[in-house]
C-alpha cells in the first residue's frame, strides 16, 4: 500500500468506525482500494444467477439471437482503445482529444453507410433502434403535419413503432395498421389501396423479430416512390444479415441497431435520405449534434463498435448467411422428422433463416420453456417475454389461440455451433414428447377425437 492509500484508509477508519462492514472490508487482507466492491457485485450476481438455474451442469446455451447477440471480439477490440485511452468528446473542436474521437466517429459513420449503400452524411447516431424508430415516425409525421395527417404501418411491427403510431393518433393523426397474410407478409394491393392523398409516411419493418419474415421492401419502396410518400423501414433484425441498399430499395429512413449485429448495446443509427431531402422534427432538444436530429454527445466507443460491427457484417454476410441456413435446416429436419404436429410460423421461403418460430401443438409454450431451462430461448419478443399473453404477431398472422400459446423462437448467431443446435433439437424433442405424454388433449388426439369439434361446457 502506498502512502496515499494508507492515509485514506486511516481517515476512513476514524470517520466511520461505527460501520462494521466497512471496517471488515478495510481489515481484510484482500482489500484493494479500487475495485473490490464493484467486482464483488459481479461475482455475487454470477453466483446467484447460477444457483437460480438449479443443478444444471453448466451455463445454458444461447439461442435467443433476436433479443440480442454476443459482442464480437473483433468489435470489442476496436472499442477498447476508446474506453481506455482516447476519451475525448468528439464534438470538442479545440484540442487533439476531440479531433481523434471525431475522426473515429466519422470513420464509423462511413462504415455504417457502406453497409447499406448510403452516404456517411445521411447517418445519424442514436441510442438504438427504438430511438431511431421514434425519431422516424414522430419526426416525419410532425414535420409534415400541416399538410399530411396519415401514417401506414403493419400489425406485426415492433412495439416501439406501434406505440409511436399510437402516440401520433393522440396528436390527431390517422394510422392504418395493415393486416398481414397467414405467412406474415403484407399484401401489396392492400397497401396501395390504403394510401391516401394525405399519407406522409409508410413504416414497414424489413425482417420481423418474432417470425423472421422478410417483407418485400423493394416493391414497397417502389410504390412509395411513385406516390411520393416517405418510406421508413425498421431494419434492426435485417442490417448486416441480408443485403440492403437504400437506393435500390428506395428507402427514405432506416433504423439500425448495434446489439443485433454483434455490436455494443445502447447504440443504433438512423439513415435519413438527403436527396430528395427528408425532414424530421427532432424528438430531443439540445446542442444540435447529428445535424440537429439527435442532440447529445455521441458516445465514441459505442459508435466505433457499431462501425466495426457493420464492417465485419459486410465482410461476413455471405459466410454467416450460409451458416444460418445450415443451422436452421438441421434444426427443422431433425425436429419435424421426429415430431408430428409441429407448425412453422411465418413464411418458410421469404424469411431470415437465423430466426425459426415453431409451434408445438398440444404443448404449452411456457411449460416447454421451463423444461428447456438449459437452453436460453424465448417464446417471442424479449420486450413482452414477461407476460403470458400470446404474441400479437402470431395473432396477426391468424395463428390459433392454442398454437400461439405453444410457440418458441429459435434464434441463431454466427457463434452458434452445430452441436448446440443438435443438442437443442434433441432436448426439444424429448421434452415435447414428455409433455404430450402428460397432456389429456394429446391422448384424445391419439384416440382420434377432433379437439376443435368439442363443445367445452361453460360453468
Amino acid at each position, binding site marked *: 500500500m502506498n502512502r496515499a492509500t494508507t492515509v485514506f484508509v486511516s481517515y476512513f477508519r476514524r470517520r466511520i468506525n461505527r460501520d462494521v462492514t466497512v471496517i471488515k472490508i478495510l481489515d481484510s487482507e484482500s482489500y484493494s482500494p479500487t475495485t473490490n466492491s464493484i467486482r464483488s457485485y459481479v461475482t455475487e450476481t*454470477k453466483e446467484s444467477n*447460477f444457483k437460480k438455474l438449479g443443478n*444444471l*451442469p*453448466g*451455463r*445454458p*446455451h*444461447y439461442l435467443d439471437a433476436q433479443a440480442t447477440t*454476443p459482442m464480437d*471480439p*473483433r468489435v*470489442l*477490440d476496436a472499442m*477498447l482503445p476508446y474506453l481506455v485511452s482516447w476519451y475525448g468528446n468528439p464534438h470538442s473542436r479545440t484540442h487533439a482529444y476531440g479531433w481523434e474521437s471525431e475522426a473515429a466517429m466519422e470513420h464509423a459513420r462511413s462504415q455504417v453507410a457502406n453497409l447499406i449503400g448510403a452516404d456517411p452524411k445521411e447517418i445519424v447516431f442514436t441510442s438504438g433502434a427504438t430511438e431511431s424508430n421514434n425519431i422516424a415516425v414522430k419526426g416525419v409525421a410532425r414535420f409534415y403535419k400541416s399538410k399530411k395527417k396519415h401514417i401506414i404501418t403493419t400489425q406485426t411491427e415492433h412495439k416501439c413503432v406501434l406505440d409511436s403510431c399510437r402516440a401520433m393518433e393522440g396528436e390527431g393523426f390517422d394510422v392504418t395498421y395493415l393486416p398481414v397474410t397467414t405467412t406474415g407478409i403484407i399484401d401489396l394491393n392492400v397497401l396501395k389501396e390504403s394510401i391516401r392523398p394525405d399519407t406522409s409516411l409508410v413504416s414497414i419493418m424489413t425482417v420481423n423479430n418474432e417470425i423472421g419474415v422478410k417483407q418485400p421492401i423493394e416493391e414497397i419502396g417502389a410504390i412509395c416512390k411513385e406516390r411520393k410518400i416517405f418510406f421508413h423501414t425498421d431494419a434492426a433484425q435485417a442490417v448486416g444479415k441480408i443485403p440492403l441498399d437504400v437506393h435500390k430499395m428506395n428507402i427514405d429512413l432506416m433504423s439500425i441497431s448495434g446489439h443485433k449485429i454483434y455490436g455494443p448495446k445502447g447504440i443504433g443509427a438512423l439513415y435519413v435520405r438527403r436527396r430528395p431531402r427528408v425532414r424530421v422534427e427532432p424528438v430531443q432538444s439540445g446542442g444540435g449534434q447529428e445535424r440537429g436530429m439527435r442532440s447529445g454527445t455521441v458516445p465514441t466507443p459505442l459508435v466505433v463498435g457499431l462501425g466495426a460491427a457493420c464492417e465485419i457484417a459486410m465482410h461476413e454476410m455471405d*459466410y454467416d448467411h450460409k451458416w444460418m441456413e445450415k443451422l436452421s435446416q438441421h434444426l427443422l429436419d431433425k425436429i419435424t422428422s421426429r415430431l408430428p404436429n409441429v407448425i412453422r410460423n411465418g413464411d418458410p421461403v421469404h424469411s431470415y433463416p437465423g430466426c425459426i418460430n415453431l409451434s408445438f401443438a398440444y404443448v404449452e409454450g411456457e411449460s416447454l420453456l421451463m423444461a428447456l431451462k*438449459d437452453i436460453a430461448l424465448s417464446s417471442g419478443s424479449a420486450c413482452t417475454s414477461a407476460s403470458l399473453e400470446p404474441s400479437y404477431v402470431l395473432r396477426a398472422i391468424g395463428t390459433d389461440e392454442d398454437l400461439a400459446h405453444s410457440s418458441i423462437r429459435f434464434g441463431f*448467431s*454466427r*457463434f*452458434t*455451433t452445430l*452441436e*448446440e443446435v443438435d*443438442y437443442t433439437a434433441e432436448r426439444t424433442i424429448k421434452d415435447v414428447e414428455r409433455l404430450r405424454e402428460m397432456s389429456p388433449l394429446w391422448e384424445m388426439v391419439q384416440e382420434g377425437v377432433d379437439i376443435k369439434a368439442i363443445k367445452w361446457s361453460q360453468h
Partner: protein
Amino acid sequence: MANSRSVVLKLYKTMLREALEFDSYNFRMYALRRIRDGFRENMNIKDKAEISEMISYAKENLDIIKRQTTVGKLYSAEKLIIENSEPRENKLSSEKVIA
C-alpha cells in the same frame, strides 16, 4: 512461391493455436471454423499482391485473437453444458484441427 507457402502455413497453425485459447466456447468454435474456412477459401489465390494483402489481413486478425483471448480469460464465465458433458470430445476435435 514456396516462401509464401510456408509463411501462410505457419500463420494458419499459429492462428488456430491462438484461437484455442478463447475462454468462451462459442468464440473459440467460431474462430476455429472461420480460420479454417477462410484459409481454404483463399487456397488457390495466385496473385502475389493479393496473397500479401491476405497475409496482412490474417496477421491483423491474429493480433486481435491474441488480445481478445487475454480479455476473455480476465472475465471468464462458467463452462457451457455441452463443454461439461463432453469435454474430451471437444478437446479432441480442437486438437485434430491443429494436426
